[in-house]
């Protein structure tokens, strides 16, 4: 009997912290995150639904993000999408008929403690409805020069139109890409480039029918960018 009690106590001591952690994470998600993030899916099926989006969909967060990055970012959140989400709700016509970002409409993201961030990240990691899409991707790490990568990214594919590749250089309607290598799993980057609509049917990123070879180059280029921007910081 004593032995059993001992065993139960050991199990409780080992399991309890993780259970508490998980509970805390789901409690935060359902209380604080659900107002702006889609945690259950599906992705918006109509433009009207898309326009209501206030933050990235998180129902496939486990397929998308690097967990370590989530923990870091949630403690010190910084804007990733220069024009917010949905971008169309945060722009206006400025001087000379040129569109500008209306920063007054962009809200800061709440910050969490390390414990909270860790528990939320652990919960998000479980959200993996698109394992099938991820399984289709095979990313091979192959060093690419920044010049070659930029050639594919900008000249051949035109991605620079909507994405920044360094702070304040590039387009503003898409998320910044110089931090993407730190934020995202490589297979997710590959899959999203291959077919953005498989993840988000109404996405304003088009399917550019990028070849397998160029998808590999782009994923590796994004990795180079993130290594570089990390070194600058």
């Amino acid at each position, binding site marked *: 009997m004593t032995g059993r009690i001992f065993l139960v106590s050991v199990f409780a001591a080992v399991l309890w912290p993780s259970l508490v952690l998980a509970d805390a994470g789901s409690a935060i998600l359902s209380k604080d995150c659900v107002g702006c993030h889609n945690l259950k899916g599906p992705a918006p099926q109509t433009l009207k639904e898309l326009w209501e989006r206030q933050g990235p969909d998180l129902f496939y967060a486990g397929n998308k993000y690097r967990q370590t990055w989530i923990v870091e970012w949630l403690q010190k959140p910084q804007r990733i999408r220069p024009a917010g989400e949905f971008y169309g709700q945060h*722009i206006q016509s400025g001087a000379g008929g040129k569109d500008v970002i209306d920063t007054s409409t962009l809200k800061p993201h709440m910050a969490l403690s390390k414990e909270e961030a860790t528990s939320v990240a652990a919960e998000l990691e479980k959200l993996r409805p698109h394992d099938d899409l991820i399984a289709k991707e095979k990313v091979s790490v192959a060093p690419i020069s920044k010049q070659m990568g930029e050639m594919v990214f900008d000249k051949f594919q035109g991605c620079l139109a909507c994405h920044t590749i360094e702070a304040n250089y590039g387009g503003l309607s898409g998320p910044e890409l110089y931090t993407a290598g730190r934020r995202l799993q490589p297979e997710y980057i590959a899959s999203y480039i291959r077919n953005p609509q498989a993840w988000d049917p109404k996405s304003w990123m088009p399917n550019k029918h990028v070849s397998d070879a160029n998808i590999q180059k782009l994923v590796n280029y994004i990795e180079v960018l993130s290594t570089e921007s990390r070194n600058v910081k």
Partner: protein
Amino acid sequence: MSNSRRLLLLTALAFVAPLGFATETAVDNYKTYCVQCHGLQGNGNGINIRDMSVQPRDHTDAKAMSGRSDDQLFKVIKEGGPSIDKSVLMPRWGGVLSDDEIRDMVRYLRTLCKCQFGS
């Protein structure tokens, strides 16, 4: 609308809906996909243009827009800039917009430029 017409419409929708996502209006599609580069006013001054090597077409420019046929406009929206020897910065929207939506978009562009091909 009469009841029989309504029934007909509902029946038609029941067949169409499972095939794909809701058909959107050209105005809404423009606001979502085109405005990021071509701007809220359609004048080519979207938020993305600052660092572009080639500037987006000003859709209110009647002279430039009347130089393009409806077929060319359809083609460039569906297949992207390179399909009519224009910039790669104009992507192909064929995976996002249906052919019907692209045809609607061409008609909408004609209202923005207040022009027709060759006018």
